C-alpha cells in the first residue's frame, strides 16, 4: 500500500508540472512551479518535524486492493474507503471481493504472522497476558458465526446538512462468516477484575498524518457486549485467511454494533475500569445527541450532550433486482434482500410500490445465528405500465420500523436507517 501511494504521489507531481499544455504555457509553467515550490516549502518548514505523507490525488489506477470487485464505489483513497452497490450484496454470505472497506488510517505495511501477538492488558485485567496466534488457535475452542457489520455512517449522504466524513449511501454493510475464538474465553484466561467496565482494542494501522505514536482509531464496547457468545477474535473470513484490507491476520468482531468497534490488525485489547477513551471514542465520533436537536444545530461535544452508539437500528436492503429494471408487464417480479438489526431480531418485512400507501408482507427467514442478517423474498404484481419505486421496510422484535424519511439529524450523520428503494419500469 505504502509504496503504491508513494508512486501515485510522485506521479501527481509530474502531472502538476505537465498541466495546461495547450495554451498559456508560460503562465501555467509558472503556476506549476509555484505549486511544486509551495509543496516543498510546506514540506520543509511547516512540518519539518514530521514525516510527510505523500499528497493524495485520485490515482490513475483503482486503489482498490487486488481481488476486490471493480464495481465497488470508491469514497476515499486515503484513507481507503469503498462501498458496495446494493445489487452486489445479493449473496447470503458476503464474499470477500464484495465486502465494503472502511479504514481510518493506513494499512500496516509489515506483518509477520509468526511473531504476531495479542496482548490483554488494562486496569481491570488480573494478569497482563500475551498470546501468539498459535496460542489462540491451540488453547481455545473455535467458533464460526456469520456476523453483520455495518458502518455507523452508512446512509450519511442523505443527511442535510451533510455530516462529517465519507458520504456513504447504502453499501457500508456486509455479513461474512468469521472463524476464531470467543473474546470472552481469551479475556477470562487473562482474568477479569470485578471493576471491569469496557474493553478497548488497538490495531497495527498507522495514522494518516504519518506521526509515529498517533493511533488512527481505538474503540471498544461495554463488558456485557464483550462477554457475549458471538463476540469473536477471528483469523478467518469465509473459511480463508482474512484479506489484508479487512484486518489480516487478526481482528475482533461485534455483530450488530457499529463496525468501528470491530477493530482490524488486532494487537492489543485493554480491559478498562472506565469507558474506553481511545481515538474516536470521544467528541461526537460514533455518538448521538442525548436529546434530539434541529438539523444543523450545534451543541457542545461532551458526554453531557452525546451518548455512544451501541446496537444498530433495524434496516434492510433490496439486493435483487438492481435498480433501473425494465420488466415486461404480466408476470410478477421477484424482489429479495436482507434485513438486520443490532442485538434483536427482524420480525417482519414489507414492500410497497405506492410510496407507503399500502404494504405487502414478504417471506422472511430466521437468522443463521444471532447478529446475522436475515433473507427475505417477495413476488410483486404491478397494476399498470409505468414508473414504480419498490420500497422495503423491516420491523424488529420490539416493533420498531424503518422510517421512510431520513431519521433524526445528528452532527455525525449516523444511523440513517430510512427505507431502501429501487426504481422499476413496467413496459
Amino acid at each position, binding site marked *: 500500500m505504502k509504496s503504491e501511494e508513494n508512486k501515485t504521489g510522485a506521479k501527481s507531481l509530474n502531472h502538476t508540472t505537465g498541466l495546461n499544455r495547450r495554451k498559456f504555457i508560460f503562465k501555467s509553467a509558472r503556476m506549476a512551479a509555484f505549486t511544486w515550490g509551495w509543496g516543498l516549502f510546506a514540506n520543509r518548514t511547516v512540518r519539518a518535524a514530521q514525516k510527510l505523507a505523500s499528497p493524495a490525488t485520485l490515482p490513475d489506477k483503482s486503489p482498490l486492493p487486488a481481488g476486490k470487485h471493480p464495481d465497488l464505489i470508491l*469514497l476515499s*483513497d486515503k484513507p481507503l474507503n469503498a462501498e458496495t452497490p446494493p445489487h452486489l450484496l445479493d449473496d447470503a454470505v458476503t464474499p470477500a471481493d464484495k465486502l465494503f472497506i472502511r479504514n481510518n488510517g493506513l494499512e500496516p505495511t509489515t506483518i509477520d504472522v509468526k511473531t504476531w501477538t495479542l496482548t490483554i492488558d488494562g486496569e481491570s485485567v488480573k494478569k497482563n497476558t500475551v498470546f501468539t496466534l498459535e496460542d489462540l488457535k491451540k488453547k481455545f475452542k473455535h467458533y464460526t458465526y456469520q456476523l453483520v457489520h455495518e458502518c455507523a455512517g452508512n446512509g450519511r449522504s442523505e443527511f442535510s446538512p451533510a455530516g462529517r466524513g*465519507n458520504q456513504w449511501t447504502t453499501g457500508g454493510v456486509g455479513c461474512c462468516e468469521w472463524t476464531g475464538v470467543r473474546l470472552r474465553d481469551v479475556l477470562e484466561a487473562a482474568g477479569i477484575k470485578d471493576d471491569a467496565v469496557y474493553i478497548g482494542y488497538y490495531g497495527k494501522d498507522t495514522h494518516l498524518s504519518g506521526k509515529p505514536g498517533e493511533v488512527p482509531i481505538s474503540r471498544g464496547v461495554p463488558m456485557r457486549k464483550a462477554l457475549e457468545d458471538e463476540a469473536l477474535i477471528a483469523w478467518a473470513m469465509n473459511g480463508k485467511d482474512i484479506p489484508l484490507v479487512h484486518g489480516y491476520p487478526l481482528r475482533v468482531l461485534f455483530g450488530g454494533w457499529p463496525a468501528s468497534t470491530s477493530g482490524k490488525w488486532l494487537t492489543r485489547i485493554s480491559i478498562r475500569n472506565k469507558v474506553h477513551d481511545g481515538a474516536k471514542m470521544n467528541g461526537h465520533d460514533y455518538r448521538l445527541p442525548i436529546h434530539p436537536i434541529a438539523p444543523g444545530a450545534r451543541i457542545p461535544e461532551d458526554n453531557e450532550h452525546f451518548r455512544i452508539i451501541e446496537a444498530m437500528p433495524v434496516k434492510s436492503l433490496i439486493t435483487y433486482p438492481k435498480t433501473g429494471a425494465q420488466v415486461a408487464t404480466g408476470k410478477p417480479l421477484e424482489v429479495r434482500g436482507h434485513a438486520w438489526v443490532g442485538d434483536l431480531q427482524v420480525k417482519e418485512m414489507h414492500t410497497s410500490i405506492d410510496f407507503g400507501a399500502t404494504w405487502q408482507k414478504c417471506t422472511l427467514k430466521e437468522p443463521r445465528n444471532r447478529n446475522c442478517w436475515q433473507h427475505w423474498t417477495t413476488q410483486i404484481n404491478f397494476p399498470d405500465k409505468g414508473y414504480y419505486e419498490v420500497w422495503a421496510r423491516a420491523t424488529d422484535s420490539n416493533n420498531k420500523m424503518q422510517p421512510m424519511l431520513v431519521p433524526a439529524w445528528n452532527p455525525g450523520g449516523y444511523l440513517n436507517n430510512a427505507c431502501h428503494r429501487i426504481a422499476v419500469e413496467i413496459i
Partner: protein
Amino acid sequence: MKEKIRQRNWHKIKPVVFGLAALFLILLNITTSHSRQPQPSLVRKDLSRRETLKDSLDTKTGLIIAPGFAVVSTTCVRCHSPKLITEKRATREGWLATIRWMQQTQGLWDLGKDESVILDYLAKNYAPKNEGRRPLLKTPEWYKLTNRQ
C-alpha cells in the same frame, strides 16, 4: 441647449463606448482569470471512474477549478483524499469547524493567511444543498430485466 447637444453626441458615440467597454471587460476577464488560476487540464481519456468530469474540474483531484483551487489542492489533499472535500458540503462556518477539528486532532498546521482563501473556496464551491427530508431517487441506468433469477 448644451444638454441637447450632449444627448445628440451621446447618441452617436453610445455604440462605440459600449463596444469598447465590452471589449475591456472581456480582456480583463481573460487576464484576471488566467493569472489567478491554473487552466483546466486536458480531459483524460479514461473517464469511467468519475461521472461528471468537466473542463472545470481538475482531472487529478476532482476539485472545481476556481479561485483558491491551487492553495486547496496543495494543502488539503496533502494528508487525505480530495474526495473528502468533493463529496461533502458545508457552510463557511462548517468548513472552519472541520479545519479546527483537523488542527486539534489530526495534526493540521496553522494555515495562516491561506485559511481565508481555503474557506472562501470551500464555502463557494462546496456549499450545502437544500435537499429536504429525502432526496429523489437518482435516475438509474435503465436495463431490460429478462433472465430473471
